[in-house]
């Protein structure tokens, strides 16, 4: 590192024009202590930034199941393609290394800092300090780093040593690669004749691209390239005749609802290409019997509610979205609820528009 620092410092000294020493212009205003405290949440490996607090493994387990397991799995094993948080010990030098908190992360402070700033995904900054200590303790437990009776606090935080703490070193390309690759480029007879050793088409994992397919057809068969594969951006759309029995939706409300729907997007999709992700797709949700999307594994609570006659309409949706757990105890939606009535109305208008 020191070598790099010296090199950079040298460069900086030459490059730094007089503006480095510029006098302040007096712009901006002093940050208040409360403001700095609200945003300065970062934690460093030496413990700087850790708030006072504590939490134990079993509290962490309950919090994790409630807030994290839908994506990361109860044991941190990762559901579908959501990140894996545990396991992978001794795999780093193998062919398919599994990089997890336990097998790869060098510092525990990174777990606290990251969970506190970014998780649960789609509802960041919703956990208390004690919650984050407890969840961090549970993630350590999932990785066999602590026992099940462990309590993590700001006081014993630095005692925890991560298994891969020694696994990193500062970028050494400067010495390990650059000298090898800095030379006069060879121009002729640089190697023996070569042949193809691997094809991408064998794997064929490239997404569909209609325009490229059409060009390849033209290359093979000759002739002009037909118009671009995708629909023109501004092709005239025939106005859909309004259905008389359905009350018109306020477009501004629908648009506001589309914005509120971002809070649902981590788990739900709507629209032509919608599929089930963490939650079921929400096409046609208004008027749909609860718990009835095929191929989605609902909680017993939601399936039973549907069998008992619960149909999603503006009223039941509003009640469910205000307080998912209170309205339907035992359902698995890890979403704290939408307290604002305006947000709920807008969202339901949007979902209604997507259900027509």
């Amino acid at each position: 590192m020191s070598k790099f620092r010296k090199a950079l410092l040298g460069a900086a000294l030459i490059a730094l024009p007089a503006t480095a020493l510029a006098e302040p212009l007096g712009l901006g205003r002093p940050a208040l202590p409360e403001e700095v405290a609200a945003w300065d949440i970062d934690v460093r490996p030496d413990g700087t930034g850790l708030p006072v607090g504590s939490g134990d493994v079993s509290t962490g387990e309950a919090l994790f199941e409630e807030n994290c397991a839908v994506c990361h799995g109860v044991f941190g094993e990762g559901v579908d393609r959501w990140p894996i948080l545990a396991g992978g010990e001794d795999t780093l030098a193998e062919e398919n290394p599994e990089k997890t908190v336990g097998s790869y992360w060098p510092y525990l402070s990174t777990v606290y800092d990251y969970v506190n700033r970014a998780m649960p995904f789609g509802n960041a900054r919703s956990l208390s300090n004690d919650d984050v200590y407890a969840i961090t303790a549970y993630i350590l437990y999932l990785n066999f780093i602590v026992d099940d009776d462990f309590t993590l606090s700001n006081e014993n935080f630095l005692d925890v040593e991560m298994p891969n703490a020694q696994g990193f070193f500062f970028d050494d390309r400067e010495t390990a690669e650059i000298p090898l690759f800095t030379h006069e480029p060879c121009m002729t007879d640089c190697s023996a004749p070569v042949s193809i050793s691997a094809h991408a088409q064998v794997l064929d994992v490239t997404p569909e691209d209609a325009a490229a397919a059409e060009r390849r057809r033209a290359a093979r068969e000759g002739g002009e390239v037909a118009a671009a594969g995708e629909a023109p951006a501004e092709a005239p759309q025939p106005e859909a005749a309004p259905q008389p029995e359905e009350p018109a939706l306020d477009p501004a409300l629908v648009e506001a609802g589309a914005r509120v729907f971002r809070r649902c997007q981590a788990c739900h999709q709507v629209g032509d290409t919608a599929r089930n992700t963490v939650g079921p797709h929400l096409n046609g949700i208004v008027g749909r019997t609860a718990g009835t999307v095929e191929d989605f594994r609902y909680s017993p609570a939601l399936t039973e509610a549907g069998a008992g006659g619960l149909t999603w309409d503006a009223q039941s949706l509003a009640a469910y979205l205000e307080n998912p757990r209170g309205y339907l105890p035992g359902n698995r939606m890890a979403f704290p609820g939408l307290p604002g009535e305006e947000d709920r109305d807008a969202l339901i208008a949007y979902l209604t528009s997507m259900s027509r």
Partner: protein
Amino acid sequence: MSEEETKEGRPGETRRGFLRSAGLAVGGAALAAGSARADTPDPLITEEQPWGQYLGDGVDAHPYGMPSRHEAHVVRRNVPWLTADTTSSINFTPIHELDGIITPNGVCFERHHGGAADIAPADYRLMINGLVERELVFTLQDLMRFPRENHVYFLECAANGGMEWRGAQLNGCQFTHGMIHNVMYTGVSLRTLLAEAGVKPEGTWLLAEGADAAHMTRSIPMEKALDDCMIAFKMNGEALRTEQGYPVRLLVPGWEGNMWVKWLRRLEVGDQPWYHREETSKYTDLLPDGRAREFTWVMDCKSIITSPSPQMPILHGAGPTVVTGLAWSGRGTIERVDISLDGGVNWQPARIDGPSLPKSMHRFYFEFDWDGSELLMQSRAVDSTGYVQPTKDQLRAIRGTESIYHNNSIQTWHINTFGEAENVEVS
């Protein structure tokens, strides 16, 4: 042919030069191209066309103009199987469709860790805190009162090409090389901004933090911050796009894209790096012995032929053919680009055209007379430090196949006799 000639020579001379030095069988191909003739008059010329008779759209038909509707296929694309959800995902710039060096704003690739934050300019705040004389808060209005600078820089995701380490995988340079864009930014240097707060002598590191739902953070050494880092509020003349960090993002020229924190809300001065998630769990390069490089910031010198490429076959058959592509280096400018048609055995210089700016994309062209035979086409860039873009095998010998990031190796396209290109590896 000297390099001088290819860079400076007039197009005609250059092409003759290429034909000579390429030593290709020009006879047949050139004749075929020259003998194209029409037997019947072209109705597009002899008959009146609707656009020549009737009025088109008036002004204001599109208060914010969009590309021609015939270009609707020129779009960013993602690889759905890569990630669980688009809110934590990446898509790719259609570099195969573009020319010149500037990437249009609407097709600059996107990478989000918690979706794209939507922040009204009036709600925007930037805080500077930590080891400074004065902890400060700025509004967007405040930031617009500092002296501004304009610079063109490439932004490349460290994972660009990351799917290709184990073998040729994705068939299209959009997918193998499209995590990059090149934009002219307008903004304020961190030198100027940090002077306002007054960095204390022990302040050797800077933490940049985003306002989005990921609250993205990265540690940046103060030397780099004071060298050429900036905050930007304009890209290619207009406000940043939402997905590029509107209203304010950080620029860390020549260094990996993840550090260019979008929706920037805070700069904290400290005396050590923070080792946050994006500089430990991610953006560290795992080597074959199970240890990993950390803080691999600089983007090494790299180039790619964008046409022909798998999404851009040669459509015209044998004859005069334009090969074009992009080259860039996080350490400076591009000194030269060479082209091989035989998988790297022999090379000929390409012509760099357009501005040659440090830490910016360069555009190269190679005009040659294709005889219609199969080719193994490669480009190889050399930067202003004399670094020569390596082959994938050279990199794999050092880094193995699991390091994900910083794959700057030479790409091979196999061109078949139809002119179709395929992503292949050679040995």
